[in-house]
């Protein structure tokens, strides 16, 4: 098991390095292989005996394994999707002459390189043992993903990447301050030379001084919350998600946001043992309800398809924060299932919308009409993605939101009621916009925007991960495998202090 854990942080790194030399096709194959191997390794860890697997600086327990699963699922999916995504551009470049082809080669190489490095950093973050290393890994994800957001080098991408790197890095500066204060709190009990590893910190959490822990927790929610996309520090999120290439958007939204959320959960574990559950839960409830409210309102009137999905991410991060804030074990298990469901649903919604945006050449919802006619496969699948994101049965997010709400009514009824109300508003916005894209016929004036023909070669690669996403959503929603339910229950117990 320790071998699997060590390989998990070596394989994507090896793929990153390999992408520097390998020719494009081989680099893409290596990316896909590395993705599949990583997924396999994460699944192996699922059957690990005992509470945790440790290897030097690495440690995986049920809580971190949930987040590794989310990343591990999206990594190969995005790797496969980008083969199709790039094949399309390769054809365009081949038609435009040798100069364009050389440019494309360089672009595609950078893309594969960045993708592997990004996935590597996101796999490291939940796998490291300790708050300090966690901060380091999350900062690495920020800088790599900022480059991936900027990779198209359009005006929009440049602007989004600059805002993203500046806001997220400043947020993480606050996160570093949280780490420093938590170190100070721990040093009062554990002595000066300790490395912020989770187990000793949790073991002595009850004796830590309250004020620094309280400060560290609030700073952590604010700092790491910047990357999660919690209101009021969410402002970079819609820009970066909408301007990044679609495969990158899928990773940003499905995996990166929740990896940062994982950092908040680690601080929560310590804080609730030191301060009691009330204070940290109230903080999370306030941030969560505010984020959900903001996202629900923005979803109602949104013209840009990818920004719509981005605000839906803010909505779901709000739901996660609220669910943890409830503090009920059932809600906590719901939150962990929600992490997996959101990764699958949002990942595949961004991938599906990427096909739509490619075909129509615009992200403007008013010009994306008649999607169902134009896209025989992707159209219906995108509709399913939106239904899944809105929490419709039989998909996973219905199950998780149901658990969160039921758990919530036992502890904090006002927040649970607010949650239900706001989720309904968000549903109206999301479902209204997407159905109008898919079902309304194209009006005559739009007919001159030719629907671009897609290369047949690429579309299979783009479709397969989307279908995998649907399958995962249905399996998780209808009947999660026993080993997974067990994992979620153990993770939830960890999160609620083992009650």
């Amino acid at each position: 098991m320790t071998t699997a854990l060590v390989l998990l942080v070596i394989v994507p790194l090896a793929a990153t390095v390999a992408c520097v030399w390998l020719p494009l096709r081989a680099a893409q194959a290596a990316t896909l292989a590395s993705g599949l191997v990583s997924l396999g390794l994460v699944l192996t860890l699922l059957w690990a005996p005992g509470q945790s697997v440790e290897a030097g600086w690495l440690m995986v327990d049920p809580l971190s394994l949930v987040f590794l699963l989310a990343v591990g699922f999206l990594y190969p999916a995005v790797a496969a999707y980008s083969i199709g995504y790039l094949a399309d551009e390769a054809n365009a470049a081949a038609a435009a002459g040798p100069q364009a082809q050389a440019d494309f080669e360089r672009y595609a190489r950078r893309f594969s390189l960045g993708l592997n490095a990004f996935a590597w950093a996101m796999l490291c973050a939940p796998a490291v043992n300790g708050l300090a290393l966690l901060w380091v890994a999350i900062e690495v994800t920020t800088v790599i993903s900022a480059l991936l957001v900027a990779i198209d080098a359009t005006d929009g991408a440049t602007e989004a990447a600059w805002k993203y790197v500046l806001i997220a890095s400043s947020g993480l500066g606050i996160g570093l301050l949280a780490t420093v204060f938590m170190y100070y709190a721990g040093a009062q009990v554990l002595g000066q030379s300790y490395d912020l590893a989770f187990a000793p910190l949790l073991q002595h959490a009850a004796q830590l001084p309250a004020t620094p822990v309280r400060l560290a927790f609030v700073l952590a929610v604010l700092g790491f919350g910047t990357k999660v996309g919690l209101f009021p520090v969410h402002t970079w999120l819609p820009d970066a998600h909408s301007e990044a290439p679609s495969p990158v958007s899928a990773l940003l939204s499905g995996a990166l946001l929740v990896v940062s959320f994982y950092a908040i959960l680690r601080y929560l574990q310590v804080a609730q043992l030191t301060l009691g559950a009330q204070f940290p839960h109230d903080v999370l409830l306030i941030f969560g309800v505010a984020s959900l409210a903001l996202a629900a309102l923005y979803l109602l009137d949104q013209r840009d398809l990818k920004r719509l999905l981005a605000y839906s991410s803010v909505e779901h991060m709000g739901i996660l924060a609220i669910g943890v804030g409830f503090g009920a074990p059932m809600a906590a298990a719901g939150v962990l299932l929600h992490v997996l469901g959101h990764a699958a649903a949002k990942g595949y919604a961004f991938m599906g919308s990427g096909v739509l945006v490619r075909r129509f050449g615009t992200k403007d919802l008013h010009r994306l009409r008649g999607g169902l006619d134009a896209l025989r496969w992707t159209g219906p699948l995108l509709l399913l993605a939106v239904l899944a994101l809105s929490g419709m049965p039989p998909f996973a997010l219905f199950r998780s939101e149901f658990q969160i709400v039921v758990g919530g009514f036992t502890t904090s009824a006002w927040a649970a009621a607010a949650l239900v109300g706001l989720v309904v508003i968000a549903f109206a916005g999301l479902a209204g916009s997407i159905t109008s894209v898919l079902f309304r016929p194209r009006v005559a004036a739009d007919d001159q925007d030719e629907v671009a023909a897609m290369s047949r070669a690429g579309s299979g690669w783009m479709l397969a991960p989307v279908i995998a996403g649907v399958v995962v959503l249905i399996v998780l929603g209808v009947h999660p495998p026993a080993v997974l339910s067990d994992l979620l229950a153990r993770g939830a117990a960890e999160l609620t202090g083992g009650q």
Partner: protein
Amino acid sequence: MTDVTQSVPGLYDGVASSIAVVVLLLEFLMLRAAMLRAQVRLYAVQSFAVSLLAVAVAYGRDVPELYVLAALSFLLKAVAVPAVLLRLMRNADAEIAGSGVLGVASEVLVSIVVAGVGFFLVGQLGIESDVLPSAALSLSVAVVLVAFVLMIMRRDVVSQAVGFFSLENGVSLASLVVAAGMPLILEVAFLFDLLVAVVVFGVLMRLHHARTQSLSTEMLTRLRG
């Protein structure tokens, strides 16, 4: 480590607090510097001051690891980062920082208020350190807050990047006060992270300059809603 509970501050405390005050004053100078180059140089001086404080702690409190940290942070933050930024600006011919959202006087007033609030609030928390006087912690939080004002008010990529780097200086100052004993390997990891961030900031600034032919961020208003 010695116990520092005497009421009259000794030489060590005096020196340490003075250096921390200098770090905050440099942050204010950055806020009002009109020339971008001057701003980068001020950042270099500020980083030097933080490294100096690390040396003072290493010597005064006998934490030999901090010598290594001080040397690394001096090389990275006082030499390498300013060099990268200045090199970047040699290619861009913009010299004068874009006008801020407010005038310089109002910016400084806002910062004084913000810094004062941060200073006294942190003082109220009663977080005591046996390494440095707790005034240094309050000062470090004031530095972080003024760095935020700098990033928010200035409208050019160089000032915003310098704002972020000096925010990191404020955090380093705080970590000297409350986390001086943190294992060296972690501190080095933090510095390495900063190095990666500097490279990425540099790449994005270059890209921004290539797209817009300026360092100003005033036209970065396309994405909203």
